[in-house]
């Protein structure tokens, strides 16, 4: 019988995977689809000098904001960190490194890394500071910038449903960076809202095949926050 991918809690799911100075990819967009329970367990482990690849940096008390507060992060690779005051303070004080990547370049670097593609050329950033120090090449009269594939020691992600094989499906816009990050971690750990037996998900609907997922945790509850609550009046 195969080794089970199911772990009883987030701490157990991360046991043996964390070390100082490592690179971690963390899924989500804003606070949507973030691996919140796994981030809390990373905080509790005390691991430090982390390089974290994530589109955003959470807000002050939620998501990656927790790891910024405890100063466990040395460097962020992100596209937008505007919602986090702690981030701005630490960055302006020179205590935190940031590598800004255009969002599509970040997504494609992760996709490439996961797919074994070492580098690719993109129009994005040509003629801007983003291209500085990078190889540029012309194709059909247009300038392109070379960007490198990105991998991580560990990817932590969030999914809506997972089965015991690690096949995953996501819910609405909580999908975002999670499927690509699943492919680019040397080890990928997922927190799922619902855990089902293999065979219960329609194979035609699986977004992340279980080959990309090594460990699964099914927390009793996952606190999902809304960053900008916008509504319209009932007419």
């Amino acid at each position, binding site marked *: 019988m195969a080794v089970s991918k199911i772990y009883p809690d987030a701490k157990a799911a991360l046991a043996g995977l964390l070390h100082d100075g490592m690179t971690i990819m963390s899924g989500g*967009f*804003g*606070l*949507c*689809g973030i691996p919140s329970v796994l981030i809390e367990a990373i905080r509790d482990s005390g691991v430090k000098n982390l390089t974290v690849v994530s*589109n955003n940096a959470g807000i002050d008390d939620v998501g990656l904001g927790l790891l910024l507060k405890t100063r466990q992060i040395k460097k962020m690779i*992100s*596209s*937008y*960190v*505007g*919602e986090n005051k702690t981030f*701005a303070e630490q*960055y*302006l004080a020179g205590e935190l490194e*940031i590598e*800004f990547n*255009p*969002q*599509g*370049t*970040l*997504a*494609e670097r*992760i*996709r490439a890394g996961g797919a074994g593609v070492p580098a690719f050329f*993109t*129009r*994005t*950033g*040509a*003629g*801007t*500071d*983003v291209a500085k120090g990078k190889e540029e090449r012309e194709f059909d009269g247009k300038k392109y910038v070379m960007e490198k594939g990105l991998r991580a020691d560990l990817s932590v992600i969030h999914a*809506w449903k997972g089965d015991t094989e690690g096949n995953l499906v*996501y*819910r*609405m*816009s*909580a*999908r*975002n*960076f*999670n*499927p*690509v990050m699943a492919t680019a971690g040397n080890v990928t750990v997922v927190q799922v809202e619902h855990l089902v037996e293999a065979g219960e998900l329609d194979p035609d609907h699986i*977004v992340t095949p279980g080959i990309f997922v090594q460990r699964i945790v099914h927390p009793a509850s996952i606190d*999902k*926050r*809304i*960053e*900008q*609550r*916008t*509504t*319209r*009046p*009932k007419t």
Partner: protein
Amino acid sequence: MAWTRDQMAARAGKELKDGFYVNLGIGIPTLVANHVPPGISVQFHSENGMLGMGPFPFEGEEDPDLINAGKQTVTVLPTTSFFDSATSFAMIRGGHIQISILGALQVAENGDLANWAIPGKMVKGMGGAMDLVAGVPRVVVLMEHTAGGKAKILKTCNLPLTGAGVVNLIITDLGVFEVARPGLTLIDIAPEVTIDEIKSKTEAGFTVSPELQKRTAA
């Protein structure tokens, strides 16, 4: 009289054509969703992985799993689809989105755009803006004509660029410029605003379209 934010958004709405896939930036561009011309149908794209973005939800119906790229709660439509971030930017970079309408800090007469950073001050990041201006064939800037009395339409941008030579149309509260490459052409003007006023508030040089010349001379 300068256009209001809603009038600016309505002017930008005229750039939409039936069947377009459209990406709107944060700020005034968001208002364009309220000004889709009657009789046409467009789908709004959101960088975080959604096509066919619906309006804000009714109070009590917000869902933390359903947000737009501005992190605001939204709703689904019958046409909606969801996808991952790499696919989302394949749509953008691959030229599948017809038009991008976004804000700016500065635009230069050669179509250079700066809208993501103020060195030493603003450290937020570019998000998807660089990919949008590099990959979407038609880029429309929607912004106030000046900021704190300073011109935003310049000979050369002095803030870090989002894209080089990428802007096609500039809509401000005072008028509309086509980026003709080389140079800007003023093609529309807000009521009671004069060409001289626009000249005094624009660092870049521009020509006036024959049609607008006729209109303002009349």
